[in-house]
């Protein structure tokens, strides 16, 4: 039961009690008066008049009182409702915002202060974590470069045997993978902190889809995977060309990597209302229902992927999701074990306006 309802019931009870007291008082008073006037059935008339007074004046007064009480309680609790709404809207990305104080120094103001203090401390902790990740990834890069350079120098040594060269080259590959993970982490941490500005140029999504289907075809050849480009409607979105290409390449690469020999990859791009809907489906081992919900988590890898020699940094879909969300779209992953896996991306189409013909700079923000 809400506080408001409880208070209103208590209020009604108090009112009813006072009405009872008033009724009893009125009854005594009236019966006294009537007795003084030597009336015969004084008691009967007293009861009658009392009831009449209660019904005619008391009940409207009680109703009015109840309505007034309800209104008063509502007024009194409105700041609490506001505060609840404001606190509900707090998430990890807007911790820096503060709840507004009413400034009249009441208990709720004090509560607001306490909330603000708490979010400020949370904000501080989040910032610390982000800065730590950024610094850590930054600091890792110089030793990685040195390590890589040392290995490269060793690899060029004419006295190295073929087996040594193979080992050195494999170490360089691992350093590259480490570098990719560090890069991915840096990107996501910056994105979390809202430090990455995306461009908003008109981008022909259909052209990018064709391009990435062509790349996928090349990537798919060693595994004899068939890449098909289905309907590809002309679609222009307002976005960052560079990031959208990254998104498409990521998805295309996944569709080829988590596939099997002689499998298929299907691309399609459709306009649906104000949205561009991109679907990339691939055959492959697929994911079980409980794993699907986690595909966008950082460093998540499907059980089947772990069982196979699939390279990658485990951040591809997290980055893809960030790119889509940053463009105001959404991304869905659906899969069935040993059947088709489909990634659906919905992006808002650019407003059809004469500005579209102008150079991209007109769209930058």
């Amino acid at each position, binding site marked *: 039961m809400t506080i408001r309802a409880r208070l209103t019931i208590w209020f009604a009870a108090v009112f009813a009690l006072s009405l009872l007291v008033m009724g009893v008082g009125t009854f005594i008073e009236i019966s006294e008066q009537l007795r003084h006037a030597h009336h015969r059935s004084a008691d009967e008339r007293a009861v009658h008049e009392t009831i009449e007074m209660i019904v005619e004046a008391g009940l409207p007064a009680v109703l009015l009182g109840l309505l007034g009480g309800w209104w008063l309680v509502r007024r009194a609790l409105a700041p609490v409702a506001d505060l609840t709404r404001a606190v509900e809207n707090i998430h990890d990305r807007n911790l820096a915002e503060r709840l507004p104080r009413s400034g009249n120094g009441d208990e709720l103001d004090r509560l607001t202060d306490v909330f603000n203090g708490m979010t400020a401390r949370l904000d501080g902790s989040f910032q610390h974590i982000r800065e730590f990740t950024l610094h850590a990834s930054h600091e890792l*890069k110089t030793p990685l*470069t040195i*390590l*890589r*350079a040392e290995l490269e120098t060793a*690899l060029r040594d004419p006295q190295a045997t073929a087996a040594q060269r193979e080992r050195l080259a494999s170490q360089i590959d691992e350093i590259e993978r480490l*570098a990719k993970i560090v890069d991915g982490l840096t990107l996501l941490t910056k994105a979390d902190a809202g430090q990455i500005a995306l461009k908003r140029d008109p981008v022909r999504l259909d052209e990018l889809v064709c391009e990435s289907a062509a790349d996928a075809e090349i990537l798919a050849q060693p595994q004899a995977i068939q890449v098909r480009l289905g309907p590809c409607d002309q679609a222009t979105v307002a976005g960052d060309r*560079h990031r959208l290409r*990254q998104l498409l390449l990521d998805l295309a690469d996944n569709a080829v990597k988590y596939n099997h020999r002689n499998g298929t990859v299907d691309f399609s791009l459709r306009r649906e209302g104000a949205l561009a809907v991109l679907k990339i489906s691939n055959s492959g081992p697929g994911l079980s229902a409980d794993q699907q919900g986690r595909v966008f988590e950082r460093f998540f890898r499907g059980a089947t992927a772990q069982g196979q020699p699939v390279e990658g940094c485990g951040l591809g879909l997290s980055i893809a999701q960030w790119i889509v969300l940053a463009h105001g779209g959404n991304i869905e992953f659906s899969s069935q074990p040993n059947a088709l896996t489909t990634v659906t991306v919905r992006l808002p189409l650019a407003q059809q306006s004469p500005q579209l013909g102008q150079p991209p700079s007109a769209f930058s923000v």
Partner: protein
Amino acid sequence: MHVLIVEDEKKMAALVRKALEAEGFMVAVRMRGDDGLEAALATPFDCLVLDIMLPGRDGLSVLRQLRAQGNRTPVLLLSARGEVNERVAGLNAGAEDYLPKPFAIAELVARVRALGRRGVESKATILQVADLTLDTIAHQAQRGGKVFDLTAREFRLLEFLMRSGGQICGRMSIIEKVWDYHFDPGTNLVDVYVRRLREKIDDGFEPKLLETVRGVGYLLRDGP
């Protein structure tokens, strides 16, 4: 060729110096941004390798100061961040090239060499390596009388390899110049394309021209 390296990480600077000296370049090293600026203004260099994070004065500020004083030495920026925005900021500040860490040393050497060559870069429309020729206007590549059927991307890749004149092309450079991706695509796209290109231009021909340099990239060998 005279190269100035401004890099505060001792080991890093030593490795770069060694690699550049092995190519026969004259190399000077400064560890601080302000010292680097002074050195760059005092003596003419053919190329400047500049780290962004530096004590004394950061790399971008050194670069702006150089350009403000009318110094046009080609600059290769090194950065640990590797963000597109930073790349754009670096190029806007007047850098000719940008290399995110961790990079392959061979890639750095190739880029320094390319910067030193700047201005004398060949504008030729017909390129030739051994008996392989590529006509950028007719959009045609052939070897030993056989005309190849190349996709647009394969053509760009071949042109880039041929224009590099027998130098190693790092995977990062290929990704940048042929795909115009300024991020690590995290796929073996380059390797797969090169493999396909190799099948076309090397299968059935001798000598094999397209060589893999393990851990670094590829090389189109001119001559034996």
